[in-house]
């Protein structure tokens, strides 16, 4: 086992990793930018090294500074947390060359799964379902029609060079295909300088359901059930839960088998997540794999009782996973709400000094945060300031616990999205488990209210 680990991150996840190390008897080194001098991860680590000015590229993303900090402190391994350098294959390689253990998967796996096209190709070869489509650029409107008839309507036409919704058209009715095809090409030409478009199946009200996997260097590969993360805004998750209200035992075991197949296709080692889109008919499709620990990992920890960070460290040290697939049992229901420093109505970031801070507690409540009264939320980094996780014997109990936890979560001095989370937790469809990735669209106007079911 390692004697000393450097944590190449900040905020709540840095603190979370420090706690895991402390329980394992491992010394910790915090690295920080000059904007984080008074952060709790600096305060609670055994050692700390200032690695640069506030801008991430000069500090938390500065490979040379992070490696040097490990060298001068004698750390043997680096935990990258999430974000920053966590899915940077180059960084994982440099660690290896410098004799440091990167706590995560092999660099070539990070690279392969980070390249979206390559990841999809790998999954098709492995027999994991992916979203059906044209497998490349459309040559004509006729070509588009052929593909759409084969995979089934509705379809989505997307700019090959695209992003951000431009050059994108949903086509429900075959009669509209010609117009949509031309419009998408024109928009793509205007926005990206090329008219190339491709086509894929358009999923109606899809849910985002992901599976946690763990692999070790002894050939063990396990899955730790699902997390439902459909409540998201512009691909930013806001609420995550486990189990998903959309899965029965049969669907769960089919999806779990696909997740293991996906991870097995790249001989995955350490903690990873297979993300699927699940449609209303129970068909599911691989979208991507995250080769790191995720923000929402506590949801899985609360229902399985497994400490994922400690497991990551043990795996990186060459130990086998400390339990078997049969040992993985879930108890009750867990929900996580991400608390961000942002305006609950406009979603604009709200950095600044926290004047007063009171954390919720009591039965079934866990809060992961690195904030405190008088702490400053710097404008340079992610706006998430806390994760509130509620566990209950049933989903209803977890919702009720979350509601009263949010009520007693007091943050003054900066704006937070606590009120928005309270609106979500009282939304009738949320309470009934009727959610999809479209769910957040309703929170532009004032929402409806209902009591817990």
């Amino acid at each position, binding site marked *: 086992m390692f004697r000393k680990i450097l944590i190449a991150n900040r905020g709540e996840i840095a603190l979370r990793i420090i706690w895991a190390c402390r329980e394992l008897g491992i010394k910790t080194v915090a690295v920080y930018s000059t904007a984080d001098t008074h952060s709790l991860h600096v305060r609670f680590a055994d050692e700390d*090294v200032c690695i640069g000015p506030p801008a991430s590229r000069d500090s938390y993303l500065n490979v040379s500074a992070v490696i040097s900090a490990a*060298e*001068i402190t004698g750390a043997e391994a680096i935990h990258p947390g999430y974000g920053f350098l966590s899915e940077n294959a180059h960084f994982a390689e440099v660690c290896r060359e410098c004799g440091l253990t990167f706590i995560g998967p092999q660099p070539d796996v990070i690279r392969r799964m980070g390249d979206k096209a390559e990841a999809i190709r790998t999954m098709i070869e492995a027999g994991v379902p992916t979203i059906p489509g044209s497998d490349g650029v459309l040559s004509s409107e006729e070509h588009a029609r052929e593909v759409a008839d084969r995979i089934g309507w509705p379809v989505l036409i997307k700019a090959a060079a695209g992003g951000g919704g431009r050059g994108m058209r949903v086509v429900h009715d075959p009669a509209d295909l010609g117009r949509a095809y031309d419009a998408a090409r024109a928009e793509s030409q205007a926005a990206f300088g090329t008219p190339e478009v491709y086509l894929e199946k358009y999923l109606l009200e899809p849910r985002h359901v992901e599976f946690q996997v763990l692999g070790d260097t002894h050939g063990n590969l396990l899955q730790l059930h699902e997390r439902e993360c459909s409540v998201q805004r512009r691909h930013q998750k806001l609420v995550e839960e486990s189990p998903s209200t959309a899965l029965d035992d049969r669907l769960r075991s089919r999806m779990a088998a696909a997740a293991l197949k996906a991870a097995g296709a790249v001989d995955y080692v350490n903690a990873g997540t297979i993300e699927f889109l699940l449609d209303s008919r129970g068909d599911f499709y691989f979208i991507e794999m995250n080769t790191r620990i995720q923000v929402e990992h506590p949801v899985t920890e609360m229902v399985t009782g497994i400490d994922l960070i400690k497991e990551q460290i043990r795996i990186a040290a060459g130990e086998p996973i400390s339990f078997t697939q049969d040992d993985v049992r879930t108890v009750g229901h867990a929900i996580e709400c991400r608390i961000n420093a942002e305006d609950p109505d406009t979603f604009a970031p709200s950095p600044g000094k926290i004047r007063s801070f009171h954390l919720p507690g009591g039965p079934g409540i866990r809060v992961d945060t690195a904030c405190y009264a008088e*702490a400053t939320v710097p404008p340079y980094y992610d706006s998430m300031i806390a994760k509130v996780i509620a566990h209950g014997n049933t989903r209803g109990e977890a919702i009720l616990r979350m509601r009263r936890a949010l009520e007693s979560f007091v943050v003054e001095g900066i704006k937070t999205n606590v009120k928005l989370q309270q609106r979500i937790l009282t939304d009738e469809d949320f309470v009934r488990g009727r959610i999809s990735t479209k769910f957040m669209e309703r929170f532009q106007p004032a929402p409806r209210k209902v009591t817990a079911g």
Partner: protein
Amino acid sequence: MDPKQLRELIEFVSSSNLATFELETDDVKLKLVKESAAAVAPAAPVYVVTPAPAPAPPVPAAAPPAAPADLVPAGPPVPAAGEAPPGPAETGFVDLRSPIVGTFYRSASPETPAFVEVGARVRKGQVLCIVEAMKLMNEIESEIDAEVVEIRVANGQPVEYGEVLFRLRPMSA
């Protein structure tokens, strides 16, 4: 040394924090002692006179010793050595800070002498030390013409970003 140079030197020393000043070249040996200082100060070596608010211990902390405001949360970020030409602080000293994380070396190799000693006069662009990061030897240069007043880190010690390496007294060119 002509009278004009001598006068300028006397003026410079008078307006400085120095108590005594010694200069030795091939043809000149000169010692200037300030009257007030001579009356009180012992004959000890001189360079640290009326120092900046206590020469803070060289612990690995990024807070600059001359800026108590940094003890307050959200203090201003430590400026990188190299950002904006360092102007003399109220005390007349300028701190040279490490621009990177690494290991501090006072000489190019264990066999060679140190780049500088306390009391040395250095030119702008002169190498004062090396900070090794990832097996790369990064030469750290003085930003100004100056005299080395204090060396704050011992040879072979790790340094972090923003840590003070040298305390310098600026000299007019």
